[in-house]
């Protein structure tokens, strides 16, 4: 059933996300084309220059707009399908709430991967320069070359992968913090939006307090200092442990937010 739910997520959310991404890539192609015309032809009149500058400005702004639209779209869809009219279908499907949450997370992760690939790719297309990509691979290759052993080289590769995973899980945690706040707010009978904002602030404050305590204990008391626990002088190993800790903490917070959302859907569902 999970597979069918994931397929359903793609049908429901994929079209909109794909349209935004394709439109953005088309815009980057237009910027690249105009850049090429500007560089290689003699069309240098004021109108062309103005248009070129304008399209660059639009492209720069659209990077933020695209990411925002994709994230806001994810939140809107969550509200519609779980707590508004479409919730009447979502919550009468013959599936467990946990499966609904898991399917949604899978699509969210795919969305983040798409954002992580599309934004740098579109910039490379727009400026017609893919050296940034080759620089990234060069730096990885350089790290591998300076490694004394096969083990060290493996650690470098693992660090790169873990960094990517950590960013994804951390972003997922942020999105699900919004989802959980929305769910809590919509468990109330009145002022659902206001209660969602209040829930978001409360979760934010709790997160801030935990971060502050952990930071204090690490800096002042050295309790959570990773270097004390890792018996290695190799910075790559320390980085690996640090990344694993970040992934674990983010994954735990995602699980907590998903649990809160599931609880509201199971026990406190209060559809508009």
């Amino acid at each position: 059933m999970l597979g069918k739910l994931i397929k359903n997520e793609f049908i429901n959310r994929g079209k909109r996300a794909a349209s935004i991404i394709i439109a953005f890539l088309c815009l980057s192609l237009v910027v690249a084309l105009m850049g090429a015309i500007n560089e290689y032809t003699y069309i240098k009149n004021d109108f062309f220059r103005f248009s070129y500058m304008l399209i660059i400005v639009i492209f720069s702004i659209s990077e933020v707009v695209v990411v925002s639209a994709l994230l806001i779209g994810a939140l809107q869809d969550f509200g519609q399908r779980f707590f508004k009219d479409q919730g009447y279908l979502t919550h009468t499907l013959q599936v467990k709430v946990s499966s609904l949450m898991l399917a949604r997370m899978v699509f969210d992760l795919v969305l983040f991967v798409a954002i992580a690939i599309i934004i740098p790719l579109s910039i490379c297309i727009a400026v017609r320069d893919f050296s940034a990509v080759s620089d990234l691979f060069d730096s990885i290759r350089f790290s591998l070359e300076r490694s004394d052993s096969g083990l060290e080289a493996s650690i470098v590769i693992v660090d790169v992968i873990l960094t990517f995973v950590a960013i994804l899980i951390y972003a997922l945690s942020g999105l699900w913090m919004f989802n959980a706040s929305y769910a809590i707010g919509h468990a109330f009978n009145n002022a659902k939006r206001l209660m969602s904002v209040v829930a978001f602030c409360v979760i934010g404050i709790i997160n801030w307090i935990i971060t502050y305590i952990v930071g204090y204990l690490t800096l002042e008391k050295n309790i959570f200092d990773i270097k004390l626990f890792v018996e290695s002088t190799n910075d790559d190993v320390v980085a690996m442990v640090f990344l694993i800790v970040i992934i674990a903490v983010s994954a735990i917070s995602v699980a907590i937010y998903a649990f809160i959302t599931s609880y509201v859907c199971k026990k406190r569902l209060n559809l508009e």
Partner: protein
Amino acid sequence: MSDLVQIEHVIKHYGMNKIIFQDLNLNIVSGKIIGLLGPNGSGKTTLIKLLSGLLSPAQGTILIDGKAIGPETKAVVSYLPERTYFNESLKVRNLVNMFKDFYADFDEERAYKMMSLLNIDPEIVLKKLSKGNKEKVQLIMVMSRRAKLYLLDEPIAGVDPAARDYILNTILTNYDPNASIILSTHLIYDIENILDEIIFLKNGEIVCHKDADELRAEKGMSVDEIFREVFRC
């Protein structure tokens, strides 16, 4: 006949002040069309939402086909809410595929047959349909399931009389005789001929639960007239 629905000592309230049901008890057997009748705010929609699993009772037990509300009961309950509830950016065919994926009892062939009778193109996007046609698509999807219990919340409200006839005909010709239908409405005149049983709800209490023919014979009036008498303001 066995009890398809068993509701015992159910308490439901919204917040502390708005109490909907204080001690609701109700048994419904298989193979009946039951009219859930009552004025606005009497608790009809809340009762249907409790049965469909959209709301949880504060206390008490609800069993459908002997099972507590959950994925197992959702497999045998087909629910039509009183609003449009599909993602309007999807094509009708996407909805059919979705129902086929999630409900083992969904009869795809029956759904397409009903659509062709109504000239509804499966390739059309829902948002391009009129309100009446959207409601018909919803009804087709719900009635294309071979469920044990159909929960129809105001299925004929907001549609013209000709469409009402179509909807009632669709309900009558598409449900399994061993299944039960709970049909909530305040347009009693239109549906009274198809009802086997009547439930009158007033302020969250069942004031009458009887066989429709018995009730008519007992009072010497139509159900519509009895309703007007019971709920006279």
